[in-house]
């Protein structure tokens, strides 16, 4: 039995060491931080325009699902009709779509990412109010302050789960001062959740430049101050494992407006669905569908 005890001891220590070693490899904090202002990069001073558009939802949108807030009575008292916000459609227009300039070049041929873009000094606010995040989707520049507030009479915890930036998790009791954070690297999009209230979700788009917007309740968006040029504009909407993206080439004229209308929903998905044979929802064999 002495030998058995030793074997168990060695096994448990080995497991712990394995866990520690793995944990040490996990951190994305080793990523070199990006800077909003590229060293030696020039600032843009030429003519600008806007990108405008409308995001529509084709087909019948999924009905919002009622959230059971019984685990924390305060949530139900403050927000009795709390429901899911993943597909907010009004008159066929889709809200909470993150639209951004992915790449492209200004008329002088300089890529959008090669210019220096200074982060605004004003903070972007993410509020926890009625046990949901307001806004549900937001954009922010790298190194711009994110101020997280708790307007609820209960405690929350904020847990962004980035891939390129350091992950963090912080409890914020009711009445606590705002938590201020920044993201050093661009990332579209970072899911945010509250581990206290698992229905609470938000998404943060982090970009080096300021050319992004979130579609309003009427589906419209406007991206201002875009250098005249031709760009790849992406619209991202949550859903599935990593959300859904639509891409469009847009030319922005000097002092004018480039149009970028996007469509999500059943009909749009059917038009772009790639062939794959689904045996079970979790078991896909894409190679079988390519013949």
């Amino acid at each position, binding site marked *: 039995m002495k030998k058995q005890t030793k074997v168990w001891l060695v096994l448990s220590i080995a497991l712990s060491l394995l866990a520690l070693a793995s944990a040490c490899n996990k951190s994305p904090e080793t990523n070199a931080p990006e800077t909003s202002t590229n060293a030696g990069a020039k600032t843009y001073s030429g003519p600008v325009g806007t990108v405008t558009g409308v995001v529509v939802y084709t087909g019948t949108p999924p009905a919002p699902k009622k959230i059971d807030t019984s685990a924390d009575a305060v949530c139900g008292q403050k927000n009795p009709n709390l429901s899911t916000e993943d597909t907010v459609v009004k008159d066929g227009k889709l809200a909470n779509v993150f639209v951004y300039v992915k790449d492209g070049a200004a008329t002088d041929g300089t890529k959008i990412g090669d210019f220096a873009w200074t982060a605004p000094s004003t903070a972007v606010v993410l509020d926890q109010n009625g046990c949901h995040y307001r806004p549900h989707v937001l954009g922010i520049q790298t190194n711009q302050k994110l101020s997280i507030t708790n307007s609820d009479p*209960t405690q929350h915890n904020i847990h962004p789960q980035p891939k390129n930036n350091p992950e963090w998790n912080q409890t914020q009791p009711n009445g606590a001062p705002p938590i201020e954070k920044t993201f050093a690297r661009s990332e579209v999009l970072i899911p945010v959740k509250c581990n206290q209230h698992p229905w609470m979700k938000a998404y943060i788009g982090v970009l080096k430049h300021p050319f992004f917007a979130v579609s309003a309740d009427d589906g419209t968006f406007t991206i201002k101050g875009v250098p005249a040029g031709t760009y790849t504009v992406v619209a991202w909407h949550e859903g599935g494992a990593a959300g859904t993206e639509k891409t469009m080439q847009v030319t922005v004229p000097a002092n004018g407006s480039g149009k970028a209308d996007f469509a999500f929903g059943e009909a749009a998905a059917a038009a772009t669905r790639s062939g794959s044979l689904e045996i079970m929802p979790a078991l896909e064999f894409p190679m079988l569908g390519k013949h």
Partner: protein
Amino acid sequence: MNKGVHRFALLVACATFFLIIAGAMVTSHDAGLATSDWPLSNGQVFPKMVGNLFWEHGHRLVATSVGLLTIALYIYLVRKERRSWVRRLGLFGVIAVVAQGLLGGLTVKLMLPLAVSAAHATLAQLFFCTTVSLAVFTSRSWIEARPKFEEQGSVPLRYLCTAALATIFLQLILGATLRHSATWDQPLPTELVLAHVAGALVVVLTLGSTVLSVFRRYKGEKYLTGPAAIALSLLIVQLFLGLAAYLTRLASPNDPQPLNPMVGITVAHVACGALVFATTIVLTLRTFSVVGVSHSTVKLDGRTTGVVSI
């Protein structure tokens, strides 16, 4: 033999089983990071247990109780138990429960890395194995002289039991890794699902052949057929629970929050897996105790004859 020690060891084993259920509730509710600090929750010993903090802090309180019970059991063993190896196993239990607590803290502090969380769930099963073993070793049926049985098969039952126990343990590690690889709102990784299904087939083969061998070779010997029958029954229940857990978990990413059917069935699957493990431990220990590997028959205690157990 001390009845009190055995009863207390049983209590610790039952409390550990309850702790495994409490831990499974934390995972299924995605409550592991409901508070960012450890060992206190939001800086308090008794915080307001609302939302998922109920599960996370509740788990910590149960774990603390089990830790204290394990220490008390060790003290009890030191005072009352004459067999030094049993006392040492009690000490190992204390070391394991402390390591398990530290691993739990580590998984919170490092924000649930898969390896640490899976190791935490695996060590939980090893600790459960220890407490069940202590309950077996302090029982009257273990200590009192029993008739020894001659090994009757070409493959020794000891080997079959050990193989079943090892595959169940590996399956528990796979299950723990699968559970911690995706939260309720993410799809489970297909490779791990397939590996866990394959593991279930291997467990069915090893445990099934072990139980059948027990019934064929030692029919009527309740000391062996009892745990074998319970293990087989639990295995059948476990297979159905596994299928049900998979189906409810498939739908889970589309739900607004972890729903009770998914949580209940998944936690039942974890608990039943622990019970299959526990009964197989009992069967294995009893097999090692009464089924010999040599064929030299000797008088044991004047009442029975049997085979020398090596």
